[in-house]
């Protein structure tokens, strides 16, 4: 089994010689590590939608929230929209995508929103972040900077690609990017597989100076992180990481991690979640020296965007707690995720996870979802935006009258 996985990984991701005619072909990246007993499994990644969904076709009334909160469709017509970046003046939101290759700009025009495409034809431009007045866009193979974009719809990009030395594998290398309190740009490089011993450029989070210089690997053993934020008081980096597939319905669970020291190792590919040893890649003392997660975030739940809430609109108990969007599982016979959860960290450092925005999947036992929440963004008035990658929409969650 191990040989088969290793073979598959080599063939798919390293420049292997042409396969001999009678050897089995590499399975697609998302099937690597699948045990023989699951080879007839019908589980497969859910299809995305690349066309606009009119606001009138979005069943937002099915979303459930704690008492006193409400959700409305804030913007629609952004197929594939996921990570959001707020302009410094708080008036425009920039939204990255994957397959459709676009970055959107959503302008709030007193009660209604307009959407335009800022740039298109890119290879999965999922990462968007502001540094002063400049919007950074990270595609898998390209980095663009749009100076002063929020004030000028004609802003032309500066191509920074060469400065960032992006490795070539595409799988799990779409980005979430953000500038930290230290003014540095944080960029994840996922493992280019479900499970493998990846080349040294992958399975890590790096930070750079804003111009792409001064690269430093700050976390290793990170399978696929596409969401992080810094604690408003401690300034520490918290990030989600997706657990591997094909080790059964119940795990290994996604992780919520905290970086307390530069260079920490989070375990991939040998040690997952709270000390689960990998089924395919074995190593002596697999979990030795591995930083354990602060919280387990559900099996296959696809934990995505993370934000600490610092606004004043929500009740005080939400201050400095964290919202995490869980886009929802595919590699599991029954659904997990498809919601936004609220994570509170106690005095003892322990985290409690509770549901916040639910109702996106309409059955406990089967996949009947209408939306897939991917990212959260706090607005200047304290409302919380939630992007829905499935329907290409952004919802606004508010509290009170």
């Amino acid at each position, binding site marked *: 089994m191990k040989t088969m996985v290793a073979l598959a990984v080599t*063939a*798919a991701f390293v420049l*292997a*010689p*042409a*396969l001999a*005619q009678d050897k*089995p*072909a*590499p*399975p*697609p*990246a*998302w*099937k690597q590590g699948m045990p023989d007993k699951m080879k007839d499994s019908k589980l*497969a990644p859910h*299809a*995305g*939608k*690349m*066309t*606009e969904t009119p606001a009138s076709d979005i069943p937002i009334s099915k979303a459930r929230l704690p008492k006193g909160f409400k959700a409305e469709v804030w913007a629609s017509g952004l*197929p594939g929209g996921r990570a959001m970046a707020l302009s410094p003046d708080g008036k425009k939101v920039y939204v990255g995508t994957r*397959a*459709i*290759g*676009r970055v959107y700009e959503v302008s709030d025009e007193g009660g209604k929103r307009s959407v335009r495409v800022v740039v*298109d*034809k*890119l*290879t999965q431009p999922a990462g968007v972040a502001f540094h002063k007045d400049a919007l950074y866009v990270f595609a898998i193979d390209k980095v663009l900077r749009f100076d002063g974009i929020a004030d000028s719809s004609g802003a032309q990009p500066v191509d920074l690609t060469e400065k960032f030395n992006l490795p070539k594998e*595409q*799988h799990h290398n779409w980005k979430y990017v953000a500038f930290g309190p230290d003014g540095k740009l944080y960029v994840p490089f996922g493992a280019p597989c479900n499970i493998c011993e990846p080349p040294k450029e992958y399975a890590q989070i790096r930070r750079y100076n804003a111009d792409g210089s001064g690269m430093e690997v700050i976390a290793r053993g990170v399978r696929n992180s596409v969401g992080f934020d810094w604690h408003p008081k401690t300034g520490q980096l918290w990030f989600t990481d997706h657990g591997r597939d094909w080790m059964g319905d119940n795990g290994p669970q996604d992780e919520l991690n905290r970086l307390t020291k530069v260079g920490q190792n989070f375990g991939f590919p040998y040690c997952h979640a709270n000390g689960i040893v990998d089924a395919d890649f074995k190593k002596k003392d697999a979990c030795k020296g591995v930083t354990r997660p602060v919280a387990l975030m559900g099996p296959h739940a696809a934990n995505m965007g993370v934000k600490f809430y610092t606004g004043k609109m929500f009740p005080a108990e939400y201050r400095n707690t964290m919202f995490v969007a869980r886009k929802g599982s595919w590699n599991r016979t029954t659904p997990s995720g498809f919601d936004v959860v609220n994570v509170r960290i106690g005095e003892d450092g322990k985290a409690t996870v509770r549901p916040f925005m639910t109702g996106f999947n309409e059955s406990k036992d089967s996949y009947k979802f209408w939306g897939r929440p991917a990212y959260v963004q706090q607005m200047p008035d304290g409302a919380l935006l939630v992007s829905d990658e499935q329907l290409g929409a952004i919802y606004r969650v508010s509290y009170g009258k």
Partner: protein
Amino acid sequence: MQARRRWAVLLTALFFGVAHGKHEQCLACHGPDGNSLTARIPSIAAQPRLFMENQLVLIREGLRPSPEMFPFVKDLTDAEIVALAKQISALPAKPTQSSPEDPALLKRGAELGRKLRCRSCHLPDYGGQNQIPRLAAQREDWLEPVMQEFRDKPRPGGDTLMAAVLYGVSDADIRALAHFLSRSSAPAPGR
């Protein structure tokens, strides 16, 4: 030759486009019932609805370069694409063979279909699902160059997983697969 064929395709489609709605415009090239009668033009009947939507968007956005298709697709709105995909996915598929049957190729193709695990995404009847196309009863002279293209020139917007599956597969095996798939029974429409 290539240029002349392109012009012929354009003119035919424009003629039909003026006379009829957009749905008919597609059928001018892709066959009167969505089952292509023309070499190197694919059948689109009974393709999964989402696959059709996605491909039309990818061509319109320039992520899937197609000089033949682009003029027809470039001004389509999302709503028009959704409507077109719905109409076309409901058309029944028919076999469209373009070469004499070769039992050895057929056998080799069937083996490869299992070995390369094509059936896990394209389903055991090769009818496709959601974003994944129907291969059964597709034109052989379309499947062959498309698989070669996936193998040799993966493009932005193209499925990197598909490129990985075909990595290192020989021309002869691609021919056998195309031969076999084109002769697999046409599945029912409506996926």
